[in-house]
């Protein structure tokens, strides 16, 4: 089952397999190279598990220098490279092709520098998102972007996808918290972008790299901004009988001048599944908001008072303030385990479109209608404060054709997001998943301009090709190497 096409592997590269592996083995330490087909199988997919393909080889460098060596060889031999962090991409961003090698960050694990006076940390990009916060939290600091996958996902993938999380409403996403990177270009040359200072000297290439999905180079080190931990935080649960009122509540809170750190949303189906799984005590209702505020006790009290006033005027089914640290943890435990809980019951496709906050109620209604038309079930759990939706389309992988139906409904929902003024993806990236929908949001000229930027960084289109841009749009560029390769 697979309705997303991947290009045919390059026969020239497949035929040259032995020479390629030999060249890599000569240049790289033995423990950093995996060529045994049984072992490369572990790298055949990311979190978009419906699509699988083991690579030619997997390279796991431990230094920037080794990444550079590996890229030089791939560049010389015309081998495509798929950069990979922890492989938690939901968009197929780190899916390999049979004629590519994966360069993974799992051995790039060092923390290089922690600097509290200047408030940054410098790490190799294979460290996990959570471990960054863990290395500074005993000293009262944290790293703000907090994807739900933070236990597993790597800073490398966070930078490539410009990942966000529940607390981005206040603190921004990766691009707002990234100060500098070491980038290895497709030909192996190493460049430094940014550093511990706060803005770019010339063109803002750091911004270009962040969110570029492994299209422009391999990021081996990063300087990340760390922030002092807030004195305290407290979530509030607000339950409503319909999505419209919940949406209205979100807009009014934002307008009121209180800026919560997070406003999360769950619908009835999701609440039910989470309750069955974790019994965190959510009220069962049509639309549940988790609103979290931060500060000292006095500051929290004032903010909650205001939120309460707004919410009560909208006649909620439930308004419940967390009374203890334990209760707060439970509330967040439920939210953070939502995807996992869903996954135990069903296969699901997780979408990631963003819409204007004011369009949330309309979008939710239309998603319900589309789901009915397609005869599928959709659960909603998402970041309401910034309009970043995560409709989960439930399907049964064992049922012939069900996955394809889910994909069709997914495409319809993403088109809807664009229609109401939003975009295809708020934080998961385009990858292969939304690649062929890009025309919904961009004109051919827009896409051409982006591809011209890739041309500058990766003239032969060797880095993660066949992603992000519709296959037909990138076809000529991707075949450059096949037609010129022999001559090189």
């Amino acid at each position, binding site marked *: 089952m697979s309705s997303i096409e991947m290009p045919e592997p390059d026969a020239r590269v497949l035929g040259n397999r032995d020479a390629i592996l030999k060249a890599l083995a000569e240049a790289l330490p033995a423990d950093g190279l995996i060529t045994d087909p049984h072992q490369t199988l572990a790298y055949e997919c990311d979190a978009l598990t419906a699509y699988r393909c083991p690579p030619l080889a997997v390279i796991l460098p431990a230094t920037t220098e080794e990444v550079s060596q590996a890229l030089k060889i791939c560049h010389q031999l015309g081998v495509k490279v798929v950069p990979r962090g922890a492989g938690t991409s939901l968009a197929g961003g780190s899916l390999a092709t049979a004629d590519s090698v994966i360069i993974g960050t799992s051995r790039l694990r060092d923390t290089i520098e922690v600097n509290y006076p200047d408030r940054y940390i410098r790490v190799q990009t294979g460290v996990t998102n959570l471990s960054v916060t863990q290395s500074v939290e005993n000293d009262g600091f944290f790293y703000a972007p907090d994807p739900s996958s933070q236990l597993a996902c790597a800073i490398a993938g966070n930078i490539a996808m410009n990942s966000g999380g529940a607390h981005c409403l206040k603190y921004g996403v990766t691009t707002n918290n990234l100060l500098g990177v070491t980038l290895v270009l497709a030909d192996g040359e190493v460049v430094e972008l940014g550093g511990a200072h706060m803005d770019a000297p*010339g063109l803002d290439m750091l911004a270009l790299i962040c969110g570029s999905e492994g*299209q422009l180079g391999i990021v081996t080190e990063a300087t990340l901004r760390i922030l002092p931990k807030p004195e305290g935080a407290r979530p509030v649960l607000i339950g409503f009988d319909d999505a419209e009122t919940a949406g209205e509540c979100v807009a009014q809170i934002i*307008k009121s001048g209180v800026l919560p750190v997070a406003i999360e949303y769950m619908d009835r189906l999701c609440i039910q599944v989470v309750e069955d799984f974790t019994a965190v005590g959510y009220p069962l209702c049509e639309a549940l908001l988790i609103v979290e505020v931060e500060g000292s006790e006095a500051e929290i009290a004032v903010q909650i008072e205001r939120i309460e006033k707004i919410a009560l005027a909208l006649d909620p089914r439930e308004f419940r303030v967390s009374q203890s640290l334990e209760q707060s943890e439970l509330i967040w435990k439920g939210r953070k385990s939502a995807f996992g809980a869903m996954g135990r019951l069903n296969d699901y496709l997780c979408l990631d479109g963003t819409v204007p906050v004011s369009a949330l109620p309309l979008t939710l209604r239309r998603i319900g209608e589309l789901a009915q038309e397609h005869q599928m079930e959709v659960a909603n759990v998402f970041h309401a404060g*910034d309009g970043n939706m995560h409709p989960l389309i439930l399907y049964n992988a064992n049922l012939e054709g069900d996955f394809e139906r889910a994909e069709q409904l997914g495409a319809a929902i993403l088109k809807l997001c664009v229609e109401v003024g939003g975009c295809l993806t708020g934080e998961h990236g385009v990858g292969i998943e939304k690649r062929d929908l890009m025309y919904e949001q*961009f004109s051919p000229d827009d896409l051409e301009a982006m591809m011209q930027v*890739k041309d*500058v960084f990766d003239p032969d289109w060797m880095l993660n090709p066949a992603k992000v841009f519709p296959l037909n749009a990138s076809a000529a560029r991707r075949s450059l190497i096949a037609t010129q390769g022999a001559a090189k």
Partner: protein
Amino acid sequence: MNAAITPCSEAELQDVVKEAASQSAPFRISGGGTRANIGQPVAGQTLSTNALSGVDLYDPGALTLVVGAGTSIQDIEDTLAGEQQMLAFEPMDHRSLLGTNGAPTIGGVVAGNVSGPRRLQAGACRDALLGVRFVDGRGRQLKSGGRVMKNVTGLDLARLMCGAFGTLGVLSQVALKVLPRPERAATLVIDNLADAATVKVFCKALSTPFEVSGAASIDGRAYLRLEGLDVQVGDRLTRLREYLDEGGEVIDGDAHHALWRNIRDVRHFADTGGSIWRVSVKPTDAPRLLTTVQRELDAKTSLDWGGGLVWIQVPQETSESAAGVIRSAIGQGHATLIRASTELRQKTPVFQPESARLTKISTQLRAQFDPHNILNPGLMAA
């Protein structure tokens, strides 16, 4: 000088640029013209964005503002004030420092990634930028980003445009994230600190959870700004003062607003001679840089962004040697010659020279977006 060309719509803008591209006729792109003398001097017909103005969408409940690039900052601030909101990045007004007239526009602010003291806490202009529409040097009408808060669809060309000073495209529309205005603001002022001690105090203050939203120092006076809810500011001010243990008095009320406007606009160097440098550094590197330029250039200095932004006023006598002295004294960071005579700018790389490879990438990026070299040609050249 020729009269400015002032397109009234994106379509007109596109026609004008296409025409110029076909003849390789260069443009000097201008909003309010208040930052016209930043960068290398540019020769060319003036292309004004002034008629591409007005609020296209303002959704206070979604913290979103979409405006024409030629919209004046004043109009934007008035619009936002009606809903108790603001541009959180607090864009600097360059008029007094550069001695220019006119009305600053949002297009100029975005093109220069112009941010003020609150950059420290709320991010720069580029952080608030949600999307742009622009016409590139090929005459293509392009867009990147959109109007929503989170968007990772495709490469981030919007942020690439921010800080490119118009050399990649003429902005026609920008979408920005706005924030609620703080209910109250107050500043702790600490006197008689040497530069090194000032930066120490900043580092200490910025490591507290009090969300200090301004940390600047002029003439030995350090200013630490707190903003937020009514209860928040009073309480935090008391606790910050205790924690720093440096004494200090509090400024609030009307004087407060003027104080930070002056800091934002670097008023203290407005009526000076010589040249002005703007240096972005790692905060703890700042004291060493200050010592060097005070000693070797007889320069005057001030700090913003907790020490991360250094303003240097270099007297006429040492202006010629300033670039070398300043740039070799920076650790991590970069220096921009923000105000100087045309002759000095022609002799000096205004923007920090980059490594050979990054220069090549910049040149190639410009060639993709502006192959005929017609958009502010040479403005950012080293």
